[in-house]
C-alpha cells in the first residue's frame, strides 16, 4: 500500500493561497468590468477548486483512474450546461412568429 503523506506546510500553503484568492475575488467584485467580471470570478473559483482537488483531495498523487473520473465530471458538466445554453443563446437568432 503506497500512501503519500503530504507535509503539513503544503496544506498550510494551500490554505493561505485559498484565503488570498477569496480576498481577491471579493476585491475584484468591486470593479465594474462588465461581462468580464463573471469570467474573472469563475476563473478564481476554478483555481480554488483545483487547489482543493489537487492537494486536499490528494488528486495529485492519485491513480490515473481517479484523474479520469474527475475529468469525466468536468466534461459532463460542460455537456450539460453547454448544450442547454446552445438552445438559449440561439433562440433569439430567428425572430419569433406573430402572436408570441
Amino acid at each position, binding site marked *: *500500500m503506497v*500512501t503519500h*503523506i*503530504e507535509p*503539513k506546510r503544503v*496544506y*498550510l500553503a*494551500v*490554505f493561505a493561497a*485559498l*484565503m488570498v484568492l*477569496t480576498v481577491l*475575488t*471579493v476585491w475584484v*467584485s*468591486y*470593479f*465594474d468590468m462588465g461581462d468580464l*467580471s*463573471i469570467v474573472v*470570478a*469563475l476563473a*478564481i*473559483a476554478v483555481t*480554488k*477548486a483545483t487547489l*482543493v*482537488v489537487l*492537494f*486536499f*483531495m*490528494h488528486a495529485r498523487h*492519485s*491513480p490515473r*483512474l*481517479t484523474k479520469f*473520473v*474527475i475529468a*469525466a*465530471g*468536468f466534461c*459532463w*458538466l460542460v455537456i*450539460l*450546461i453547454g448544450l*442547454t*445554453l446552445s438552445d*438559449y*443563446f440561439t433562440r433569439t437568432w430567428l425572430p419569433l412568429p406573430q402572436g408570441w
Partner: protein
Amino acid sequence: MSEHTAVAAVEHPAVLQHQFDDLEQQMDASTLGMWVFLLTEIMFFGGLFAAYTVYRAAYPEGFAAGSLRLDLMLGGLNTVVLIASSLTMALAVRAAQLGKRQDLVAFLSATLGLGLVFLVVKVFEYHHKYVERLIPGPNFFFDGPHAAQAHMMFCFYFAMTGMHALHMVVGVGLLTYFIAKARSGRYTAQYYWPVEVMGLYWHFVDIVWIFLFPLLYLIGHRGVH
C-alpha cells in the same frame, strides 16, 4: 497476486470484508466508490448550475439587484470558515495516515466545529431573509426595479444554498460518527482510508461553496463605498 482463496480471506484482519482479496483492494474500491459518488454529486449540482446559468443570462439586472441584498460579510465569513474546515479535514486525514489518534480526534472535532459554525451563520442569514420578506413565494417583497427577476434570483439562492446546507448536515453527521469511531481507536495507520474517503466528501461540499459564493454573493457591482 498469487492465489487468493475464500479461506485465506478469513485469516485477514477483521476490517477486511469477505469479497475483497486484500486490504489494498478494499481501499482502492472504497476510494473509487467515493470518487464515483462525487461524480453523481457534480451532476446533481450541475443541474442547478445549468438552470442558474440560464436565468442569470436572461435576467442579469435582477440577479445583480438581488445579489446586493445578500450579506457579503456573512457570506465571506462562511467562505473562510468552510475553507478552514477543509484544512482541518486534510490535517485529520494526515493524522490518520500517521496513526496519531489524538490528533485525528482533535482535527475531526475542529472540522465538525467549523461545519457547525457555517450552519449557524447560514441559519442567521436565512432568518434575515425571512424578516426582509425575501423568501420566494407569494409573500416575497422586493422594493426596487426588477422585482420579478430578483425573485428568480432568490429562488436559486435558496435552492442552491439549501441543497448545499443539506450536504453540510450530512457531513456533520458523518463527522460525528467518525469522531466516535476515531476515539475508540478504530482507525490505524493501516486502516486510515475511511477517514480519507469521508474527507473527499467534505472537500467536495467545500468546492461547491467555492462556486456558490461568487455566483450568488458577488454578482452585483457594489462600487466603492
